[in-house]
């Protein structure tokens, strides 16, 4: 087991956990994403066949999750940078986290229609 940790379950610890989990998830996705895009060097048909599976409702939901992970990691990453480089950063880290969460929620609501709309139309008709 890893040795004792410094953080004790406050906002700072959970934002760190979420940053780490999303970072690792995005990396694994990126690996697969480069592989699927490499199919454009095989043939247009092979590429289009694989991308067709990305347009199904189940994958649309996964895509929404990916967007959620990337947006959180990006916004919280900017917060980490502000804590490190802005002289007032450490003092405002908690407020900045709530800023990140609120902005993230707003963007996720905004992403519902663009990312999930086509899946809803396929499932429930348009």
């Amino acid at each position, binding site marked *: 087991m890893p040795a004792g940790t410094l953080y004790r379950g406050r906002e700072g610890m959970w934002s760190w956990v979420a940053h780490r989990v999303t970072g690792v998830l995005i990396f694994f996705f990126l690996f697969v994403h*480069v592989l699927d895009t490499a199919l454009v*060097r095989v*043939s247009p048909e092979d590429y289009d066949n694989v991308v067709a599976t990305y*347009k199904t409702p189940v994958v649309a939901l996964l*895509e929404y999750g990916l967007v959620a992970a990337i947006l959180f990691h990006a916004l919280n990453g900017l917060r980490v940078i502000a804590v*490190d480089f802005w002289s007032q950063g450490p003092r405002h880290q908690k407020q900045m986290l709530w800023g990140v969460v609120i902005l993230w929620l707003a963007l996720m609501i905004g992403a519902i229609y663009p990312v999930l*709309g*086509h899946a809803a139309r396929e499932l429930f008709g348009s």
Partner: protein
Amino acid sequence: MATTETTASGIGPVEGGSVYNVDNPAPLIEAPRKRTKKTPRTTRGNFEMAAWLFMRLSGVLLVVLVITHLLIQLVLDGGVSKIGFAFVAGRWASPFWQVWDLLMLWLAMLHGANGLRTVINDYAERANTRLWLKGLLYTATVFTILLGTLVIFTFDPNIR
């Protein structure tokens, strides 16, 4: 030393007073990490500091590169429904988007790989486990960067 006396140093008798005074000064103790003539030149570089800085610089650039990428691929112009070989061909006809995607590929892979290196260092406690996990990580990273770069540079819209 008698316990009721007050000493010249001004430290109360409870602490026992100081044996040092102006005529008998305490020896100077060097700061623990002070570099002296005898300190050997450091054999370590500043790799970890460079890596730390790279995570932040690449992070700032990736915000612009990745969020725009998501907007184009998943939101604008019909979202994911429009993506296909023809769409890729249209975008990579422009050197601007080729450079964009190349930069995004290299920065994201190096940023992610360095992040995973940190995660491995944190959780894999046996030296051997760390060695193997990092070997796997670096192999996958080099492979993915080379493959992606090759695909961007050799893309052929008339492949069939």
